[in-house]
């Protein structure tokens, strides 16, 4: 008898039974009868599942195959067999509150000789993210099931030669009573709501979350709405800015109870100080607005029009005798300064890439910010405008500052001479909101 360990990278959800008009096991089988595994379920003897356990942890949802990052067996599958087709089989399991959930598995299998392991992603999180099984996106929280399974003596050869069949042979286990014996989702909603920060960093293996179920149920967070179709995602957490992000006081946005209202205020404020080009992106539980790359002076004030909006950063100077003499008889090197402002409205505490929040420390360049401006949409989608702001929602001002040296490409600077707030003061935005 050989034990198999199966790691399934999984995602997401089609729907939960509670939400999907009472779809039951029969519904699952029916749905799946048209799939590639139809007719093979009878090969498995459910009685050979001897034990099961489960852990939960977070992985970056923006990764197509999050667990690939931490599981070499998955890579093995990925490299050798490619990605199994969506909907290869479905997993029926108990979700929080004991509700059964239907998930579409899109991941890959690992392989080991002594156990079987299955990973899937919480449908609740997937729902919150608005993940569509067909678009290949993934959720944040991962549940990992570890099953000891017997009677798969020929699995290794099937795994190597007939991967599709191997997938299919796991099906019966997914509806076994053993699964129900696992009880409700690990940690219940407390686990769903607590994503380990470290797990946001795709390069850090996600830590395990204790599998004990809390005695006192915790009320789940109100579900946030998925991003509308076509609403592009902004890199999250956002790449390291030039200065610390500035949290705009909530008093700046009186009576703003929805994303739409706060967007209107931001939009009006930005336009009033000359930022007419804006690009909108989706961020968790909110949105981001990117302004156009603008040329600024050393003191962070904007250059006068039309120097303010060059197609590319360049060196500009207001000529005077003192300027001329300084450049002739000192070692001063003229530099062009530019910046891009990004406003982020979110309830996520981790806005910026950091050691704590994780994320990739990519340097932002001029091309990147130009792509940001071109890549977003022109306004906040109507379907997001009526989303209520929670207490934890905040408006963050983020600055990416650049220097253009002579005979060189612009590069991002960090902590040059100004605090973040000074940029917004000099741009006139802070004053606009203060004066309202």
């Amino acid at each position, binding site marked *: 008898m050989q034990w198999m360990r199966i790691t399934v990278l999984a995602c997401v959800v089609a729907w939960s039974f509670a939400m999907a008009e009472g779809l039951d096991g029969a519904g699952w089988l029916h749905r799946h009868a048209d799939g590639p595994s139809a007719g093979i379920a009878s090969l498995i003897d459910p009685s050979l599942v001897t034990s099961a356990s489960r852990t939960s942890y977070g992985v970056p949802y923006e990764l197509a195959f999050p667990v690939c990052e931490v599981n070499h067996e998955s890579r093995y599958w990925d490299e050798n067999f490619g990605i199994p087709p969506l909907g290869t089989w479905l997993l029926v399991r108990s979700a929080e509150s004991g509700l059964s959930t239907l998930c579409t598995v899109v991941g890959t299998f690992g392989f080991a000789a002594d156990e079987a392991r299955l990973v899937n992603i919480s449908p609740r999180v997937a729902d919150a993210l608005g993940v569509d099984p067909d678009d290949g996106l993934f959720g944040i929280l991962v549940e990992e099931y570890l099953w000891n399974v017997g009677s798969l003596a020929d699995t290794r050869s099937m795994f190597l030669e007939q991967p599709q069949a191997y997938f299919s042979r796991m099906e019966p286990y997914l509806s076994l009573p053993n699964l129900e014996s696992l009880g409700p989702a690990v940690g219940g909603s407390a686990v769903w709501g607590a994503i380990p920060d470290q797990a946001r960093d795709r390069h850090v293996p996600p830590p395990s979350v204790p599998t004990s179920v809390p005695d006192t149920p915790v009320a789940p967070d109100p579900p946030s709405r998925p991003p509308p179709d076509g609403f592009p995602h902004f890199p999250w957490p956002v790449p390291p800015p030039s200065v610390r992000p500035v949290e705009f006081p909530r008093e700046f946005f009186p009576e703003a109870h929805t994303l739409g209202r706060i967007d209107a205020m931001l939009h009006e404020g930005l336009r009033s100080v000359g930022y007419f080009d804006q690009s909108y992106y989706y961020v968790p539980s909110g949105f981001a607005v990117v302004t156009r790359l603008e040329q600024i002076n050393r003191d962070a004030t904007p250059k006068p029009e039309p120097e303010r909006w060059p197609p590319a950063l*360049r*060196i500009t*100077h207001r000529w005077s005798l003192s300027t001329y003499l300084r*450049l*002739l*008889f*000192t*070692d001063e*090197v003229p530099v062009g300064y530019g910046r891009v402002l990004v406003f982020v409205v979110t309830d996520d505490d981790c806005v910026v890439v950091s050691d704590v929040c994780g994320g990739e420390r990519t340097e932002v360049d001029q091309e990147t910010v130009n792509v940001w401006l071109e890549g977003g949409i022109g306004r906040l989608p109507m379907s997001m405008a009526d989303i209520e702001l929670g207490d934890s929602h905040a408006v963050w001002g983020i600055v990416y500052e650049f220097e253009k040296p002579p005979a060189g490409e612009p590069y991002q600077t960090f902590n040059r001479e100004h605090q973040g707030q000074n940029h917004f003061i000099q741009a006139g935005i802070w004053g606009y909101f203060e004066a309202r």
Partner: protein
Amino acid sequence: MAVVGFRRSMTKISYPWYGGALFGFALLFAQSFVGRFDTNFVEAWNWFAPHVVPTIGIITSALIAASQRKSDERTVDTAIYRLALLASWTYVVFLNLTILAIPFALVNLEMYPLEWLQGANAIIGVFQGIALGFIGFFYGKADA
């Protein structure tokens, strides 16, 4: 044909060269002192010296030789003298303008000082060649 005295006209031609070289020297000295060329000030001097030193050497030796004559009755065609003088002034003015244009090169052309000076060599070389040509012609046409 109008003529001018060789010694007197040679002295006048030396003015732009001495004056221009002194002005350029002062500019470069000040710039080197404040670090305009960073640590590459030697390269700046290497750029400047070949543009003035050879001609000044020729002019100086000619003036010394003329001064050692008891009487120098040589004359030169006025037109040739004027052309040599004009070419000399043009050259030294252009040479010093190149140094004075460093701030504009930094801002408008985004060229560092040495990069700019070396880039200007091609055009300066043309002016230098014209000036030297007229000075040589001036010497050759001096009648005893």
